[in-house]
């Protein structure tokens, strides 16, 4: 009963109500955590349902935060739920996080992950970290007051486009369940003050070989936020730190040009002489594709450059435009000066040009 009372008196902020956030919200509510905060600005999409189990088909198009609140209330009506239907940004992050005991990182991008880390270091709160990629996951508890932080582990993010997101690269739908449930376990332990948490350890999970590994992490004395002489003493511009420059900030910094789907459709109608390059994976080609495209998966383009006619205008596409942007950039660097990225990918095509095309 004593432990249950501690949970009832405890509060947890879940940042991101997606694949990780779904089991987190449901299990922490079922466990009897007194107060839960949910941060998510997004709405439920049909493609989320294979992993975001807090939602069902009737929630498609609805706010994730609102839908999650209903799911939680159905499980445990005694949980006090606070919704933040907004992006977690440097402007609101400290204010949102300061009223919670434990912060959970269930976000889906590097910029927000560095933001969550710095917020936790600055506020002196534990950050229950979980991240997933296709079949693999990582979990840790970052608590700079007694161990390393996320920046001690990964000082710098990879360049944009190198590590595809779940929506881009696909992910085993069960994977965020495994990782989210471990995060929930760590959050409960932190509230109870019991057991040995993952502070100073990184747990690695690989679903295809079904293996768990554990690594010891060291605090980096030169860490810019939690080291001996920190240079980050307040929140910074995380998009800039991660090399992302949104269109509202003046467009892409990279050398390649972008073309929208209507322009591509009119080139096809005019039978213009250009090369359409599909850099998705074979399983994606089976779902849908554009006519007469040359198909080379992103990972093979480098080895199969001779299949791309350098004398032609090359238009690269993928599902959403992220992978193809990286390839357009690579092609421009490799001498294909006229490589362009089809903005929004085949999803934009399905939305704007061909509504009968299956989307995924």
């Amino acid at each position, binding site marked *: 009963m004593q432990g249950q009372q501690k949970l009832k008196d405890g509060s947890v902020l879940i940042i991101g109500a997606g*694949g990780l956030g779904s089991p987190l919200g449901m299990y922490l509510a079922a466990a009897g955590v007194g107060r839960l905060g949910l941060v998510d600005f997004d709405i439920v999409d049909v493609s989320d349902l294979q992993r975001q189990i807090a939602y069902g088909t009737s929630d498609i198009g609805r706010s994730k935060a609102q839908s999650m609140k209903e799911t939680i209330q159905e499980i445990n009506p005694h949980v006090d739920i606070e919704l933040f239907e907004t992006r977690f940004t440097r402007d609101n992050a400290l204010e949102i996080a300061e009223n919670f005991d434990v912060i959970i990182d269930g*976000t889906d*991008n590097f910029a927000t992950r560095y933001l969550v880390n710095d917020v936790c270091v600055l506020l002196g709160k534990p950050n229950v970290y979980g991240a997933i990629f296709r079949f693999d996951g*990582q979990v840790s508890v970052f608590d700079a007051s007694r161990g390393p932080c996320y920046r001690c582990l990964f000082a710098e993010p990879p360049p944009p486009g190198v590590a595809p997101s779940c929506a881009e690269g696909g992910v085993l739908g069960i994977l965020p369940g495994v990782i989210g449930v471990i995060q929930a376990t760590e959050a409960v332990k932190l509230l109870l003050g019991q057991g040995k948490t993952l502070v100073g350890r990184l747990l690695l999970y*690989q679903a295809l070989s079904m293996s768990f*590994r554990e*690594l010891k992490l060291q605090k980096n004395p030169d860490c810019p936020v939690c080291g001996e002489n920190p240079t980050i003493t307040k929140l910074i511009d995380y998009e800039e730190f991660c090399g992302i420059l949104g269109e509202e900030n003046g467009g892409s910094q990279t050398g390649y040009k972008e073309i929208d789907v209507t322009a591509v459709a009119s080139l096809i109608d005019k039978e213009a002489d250009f090369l359409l390059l599909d850099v998705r994976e074979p399983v994606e080609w089976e779902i849908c594709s554009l006519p007469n495209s040359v198909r080379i998966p992103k990972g093979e383009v480098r080895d199969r450059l001779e299949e791309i006619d350098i004398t032609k205008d090359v238009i690269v596409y993928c599902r959403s435009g992220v992978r193809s942007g990286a390839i357009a950039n690579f092609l421009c660097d490799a001498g294909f000066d006229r490589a362009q990225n089809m903005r929004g990918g085949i999803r934009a095509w399905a939305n704007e040009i061909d509504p009968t095309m299956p989307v995924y």
Partner: protein
Amino acid sequence: MKINYFAWIKDKVGCEEEEITLPADVTNVGQLINWLSRRGPRYDDAFEFIEVIKVVVNQTYVMNDQPVKDDDEVIFIPPIAGG
């Protein structure tokens, strides 16, 4: 030497685990990465952003000057952000 590739490094290299025989002139982590990169374009691509990848030898994070031996276990861990 047993090598494990995690997440997108695995996708780029094309396998999760492999066993290699360490050449005599490869004695530290930096040399190991250079040697692996020369094994083919997939490896070269995988290690293109080596500065963001963590190298773990026998369950401990190491730097590029860390000595390696044939009976070591090495894991390459990149940052991932999915959720």
